[in-house]
């Protein structure tokens, strides 16, 4: 085996030109080609979603006369239908309200919790941290039935407030772990200096630790926003009236009507519903990547 390899390298080094070409061709075959396939497959559904959203119905259902991969006469009819004939703007508003509300609630709770666990170090603080981590492993699918009864008891059924209060159950564990990691990276000496200078603990948190942890807070914030924007099962189970639905639930339950699916409107709705997170994402890509990988490494 090694002999064969040695022979082939010998043969290649004899003619440098062929080796250079060989390695480039090899690189194309081994790296660029598979990468291109991955990108094509990962992006195709979005392309298909976008192109369907702007296609007139006549073209949409006629592959024989129109090339399905392109639009010959783009139209805004689907988007217009969505914005003016359905409650789509209300759904967007509700979703935005829920996502922002739950993000702030969980950021508040998890910043304090992470500070207490990481910096106020008390006996048992690792166990509290472990408990919060374990909470992350409890999936919504086993909680939504009992949670529905809890929500009804609280009189919050069919109210966006219910979602704002429930979403932190999966946001707080994630944010807390992210922020614990972040607080760890801030030198403790800074806080000691402030303590010696007579600052109170809360002053230290507000004036020293938090400003230094801003990148971590942004990561946790945009992540929470995305997760609550995308949440589905709780929103499906706890919200009944059309006006209070979030975008993912409303598209599936209000726009899918009858036997003939209006693919144009459905895809336009999906496109518009994905746009806010996609926009957010393009602005903060690095934060997403660091928080995703940071949370896994923790």
């Amino acid at each position, binding site marked *: 085996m090694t002999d064969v390899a040695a022979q082939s390298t010998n043969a290649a080094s004899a003619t440098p030109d062929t080796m250079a070409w060989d390695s480039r061709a090899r690189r194309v075959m081994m790296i660029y080609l598979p990468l291109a396939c991955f990108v094509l497959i*990962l992006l195709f559904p979005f392309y298909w979603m976008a192109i369907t959203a702007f296609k007139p119905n006549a073209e949409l259902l006629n592959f024989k006369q129109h090339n399905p991969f392109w639009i010959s006469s783009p139209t805004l009819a689907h988007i217009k239908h969505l914005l003016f004939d359905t409650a789509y703007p209300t759904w967007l508003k509700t979703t935005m309200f829920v996502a922002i509300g739950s993000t702030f609630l969980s950021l508040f709770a998890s910043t304090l919790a992470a500070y207490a666990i990481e910096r106020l170090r008390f006996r048992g603080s690792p166990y*509290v941290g472990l408990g919060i981590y374990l*909470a992350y492993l409890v999936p919504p699918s*086993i909680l939504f039935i009992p949670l529905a009864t809890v929500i009804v008891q609280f009189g919050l059924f069919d109210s966006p407030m219910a979602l704002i209060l429930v979403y932190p*159950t999966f946001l707080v564990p994630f944010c807390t772990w992210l922020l614990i990691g972040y607080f760890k990276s801030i030198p403790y000496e800074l806080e000691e200096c402030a303590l010696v200078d007579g600052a109170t603990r809360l002053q230290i948190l507000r004036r020293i630790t938090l400003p230094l942890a801003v990148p971590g807070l942004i990561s946790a914030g945009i992540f929470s926003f*995305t997760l609550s924007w995308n949440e589905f099962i709780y929103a499906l189970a706890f919200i009944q009236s059309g006006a209070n639905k979030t975008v993912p639930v409303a598209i599936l339950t209000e726009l899918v009507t009858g036997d003939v699916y209006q693919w144009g409107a459905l895809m336009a709705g*999906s496109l518009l519903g994905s746009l806010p997170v996609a926009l957010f994402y393009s602005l903060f890509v690095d934060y997403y990547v660091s928080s995703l990988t940071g949370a896994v490494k923790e």
Partner: protein
Amino acid sequence: MSVTTLPSRGVALRQSNWIARLFDYKPFLIVMCLAPAIGLLTVFLTYPLGLGVWLAFTDTTIGQRGIYIGLENFQYLLKDSLWWNAVFYSVFYTGIATIGKFALGFWLALLLNNHFPLKSLLRAIVLLPWIVPTVLSALAFWWIYDPQFSIISYLLVDVLHIRSTNIDFLGTPWPARFSLIAANIWRGIPFVAISLLAGLQTISPSLYEAAMLDGATAWQRFRYITLPMMMPILAIVMTFSIIFTFTDFQLVYAITRGGPVNSTHLLATLAFQRGIAGGELGEGAAIAVSMIPFLVFATLFSYFGLARRKWQQGEAND
């Protein structure tokens, strides 16, 4: 002006001193800091978890308090072929999708670990399927799997002439099962790839250099350096992936709602159908509780992965 403000400021200082001292009292501060997080998690996570287990032993329906009926719900489920179907498909779905996600995700991570132009842009694009709301991309897949106007059928029939008829993706059980798994793999690849890429970047290049000097082939470098070094992070990412694939709900609910003829029900969608849509809260809770043994198994898997990582790094357990 400064003269008039001075005394009032002194009073304010003394008042805030009292509160400040309370907040500087460490036990009080710890309780105050942990209260919001622990409170939210207790009321909306721990309590419902316990309540769910209790509900599974009652015959509660929507609008009617149930009474304790022991194991009746579970005995009923054991005789229910739909539940067995859901168990089978949940395990099958998780198994195949996990293998697919990790094989393709690991491959993508290895590809992204090379140096080439526009790398960060590519990394950003790759994560997109994971960022977009699952239900919305699931709708796109539903449209791609349309029986009449599927773009895949169009490609295979009219462009490549491989088949003569359209594929019935979602109308018959087995194609529907595999279509859902494909959509799940599509959504799962980015998370796996980006997490594993982070792990790959922590492996020191000197290990590869040493191996290359010893004449190791590319496969040997992968098998004896990359794989063992990636084991800890692989175990964690896999645990998360298994837990959230096994309890998946959105994809199946959006695309097939458990059909055709209940062949694609996962335990979560079956629990929703019986518990919320059908109103049998007790039975739905029993189905949800029946997922717990699988989750415990996956968590133990994660624990041993973590323990192994600490041992490898020579750290004390803190």
